[in-house]
């Protein structure tokens, strides 16, 4: 995980205040829509996102390449 620099993104989603299950089920759909290794820039204002996004990436296999709440860069896994 890296901080303090600009990161490339292929798509962007501002999730606003959305959190918990509502956030991750939509996040799943958005990652699936990307090609393998493409990066989504996510803005998630919900305070639970700090813990949830790294946990979600760990479970699903997508890579969290940058996290500076509320901004997260997630690289889609290969399949």
């Amino acid at each position, binding site marked *: 995980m890296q901080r303090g620099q600009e990161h490339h993104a292929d798509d962007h989603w501002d999730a606003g205040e959305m959190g918990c299950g509502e956030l991750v089920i939509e996040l799943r*759909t958005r990652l699936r829509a990307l090609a393998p290794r493409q990066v989504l820039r996510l803005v998630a204002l919900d305070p639970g996102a700090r813990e949830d996004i790294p946990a*979600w990436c760990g479970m699903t296999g997508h890579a969290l390449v940058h996290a500076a709440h509320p901004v997260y860069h997630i690289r889609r896994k290969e399949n």
Partner: protein
Amino acid sequence: MGRFCVSLTSAKDNRDKATVAFVVANAAAGSEQETMVFLSTEAVRLAVPGYADDIREDGFAPLAELMAKFAAAGGKIYVCSPCFKKRGLDETKLIAGATIVGGAKLVEFLAGGSPCVSY
């Protein structure tokens, strides 16, 4: 893929619980877990099309929307058969993702190795 069960016993008698149960179910389904919501006792009413349409808790998406997203993500909804029959509901009319089951189907899912959170 791991498994995850959410057991729910409330519908309009506790809209808060019914809503949060499906938020958590969506967290599990969204995290690529094979997820099943078990509806029993009063919660079986949620399997009737249209029933959940007016359940909207502050701070959450409408319940019908949460349930539709859950089903679209491949989530399963098991509906307790005797609970459904007891209430005189029509088993030929169910929401997307719902299946009427007996206890053996629940036991099969859990005995295969699944955590379960109850509401």
